[in-house]
């Protein structure tokens, strides 16, 4: 199977899964419909409307982790190709990535020492 055909199959699977969910919805609609009555569509907040709006800004109290996460997530983009050719390249690859990872790890330790690794 060519690469294009593989991705086409994956796209087909995605569309098919969504279609299966929709078919289930159709089956449920065929079984019965909702009876519209007041109060049924209130979100669960102890039986009354939420006193404050829900769609507001929230404080991401883990933002210290989140910034470190960005750095590590970018690093993983380099790690996967490296992992595939690792044995072929040998010790040089280990040392190269070791230096890279050591710098990142020092960054993690620095962030830790400055209090980034806690809920602000």
């Amino acid at each position: 199977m060519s690469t294009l055909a593989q991705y086409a199959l994956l796209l087909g699977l995605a569309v098919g899964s969504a279609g299966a969910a929709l078919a289930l919805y159709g089956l449920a609609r065929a079984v019965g419909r909702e009876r519209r009555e007041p109060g049924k569509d209130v979100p669960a907040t102890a039986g009354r409307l939420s006193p404050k709006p829900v769609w507001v800004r929230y404080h991401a109290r883990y933002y210290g982790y989140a910034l470190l996460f960005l750095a590590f997530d970018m690093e993983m983009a380099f790690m996967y190709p490296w992992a595939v050719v690792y044995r072929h390249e040998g010790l040089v690859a280990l040392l190269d990535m070791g230096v890279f990872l050591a710098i990142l790890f020092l960054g993690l330790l620095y962030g830790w020492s400055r209090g980034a690794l806690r809920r602000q």
Partner: protein
Amino acid sequence: MTTVAVLAALLAGAYAVAVLEAWARTGRMRPGGPLFAAAALIGRESFVPRKPDRLFFEAAPVLLLVAAVLAAAVLPWAPGLVIVDLATGALFVNAAFAYVLVALIMAGWGPDGAYAMVGGWRFLGQLIGYSMLIVMPITAVAMRAESLVTTVIVDSQAGVWNIVYQPLGFVLFFIAAMALAFLPPFDLPTAPGELAGGVEAEYAGRRLAVLRLARALLVVAVALATTVFYLGGWRGPWLPPWAWTGLKTLAVAAAMFALGGRLPRVREAHFLAWCWKLGIPLALLNIFVVGLLVLAVP
């Protein structure tokens, strides 16, 4: 043909996982339980909250379903019994699992309800903890296999399974997989008994049925990924390969349920601290140790 067989296996796995989860939770084995629950959910009313973000609310269960199916699509059950033997399979699994977060945030934001919103945002915090512990152990697996193709990864475990070759990676991946599938003790987005269902709070009827099905398929997908990456996939004596994959997948799922039922729920702040202060240094150590092993023992 292969696609139909794998999809049937996935559905059977989701059914078995639903039975196992109910067994772990209630202590009663009810083989017909999932069928009755599905029939009841389909027959029940499914309301949309009064001021929803309709697109997010409707798309979330479907997106979770798609993410679980796509992740499982690149994981092999037996030689040749894989829907797509992708050249970047191990990476694709990560990409598909990333959409679990998107689906849960959408499910939290969509209904404009406080409990759902709290559940969704909690899962975002949880992702920042577990996500590195998914990708880093898989890197070490790819280093040994010299490939991202999932069938090659299984073949690379012909002598010694990865659970023996890199036990540290297995433990980290196992815990992170539990957090990814929001199984207890990492069930922060749903948090039964605390958040009124969290992201599930506003879903009922048919939409909840799709959400629950997607969750069960997600558990199957993470258990299958654990099997393929660490437990030698289809390898084993006597039984046919697909039976070994199925048995190992169910065993992993059962272990997750059994373990989760015995632990108290972990707070998001504590989970983040454990993941970053202990988990990620250990994951880096794992990559280093496997790097030495791969060079020393061909």
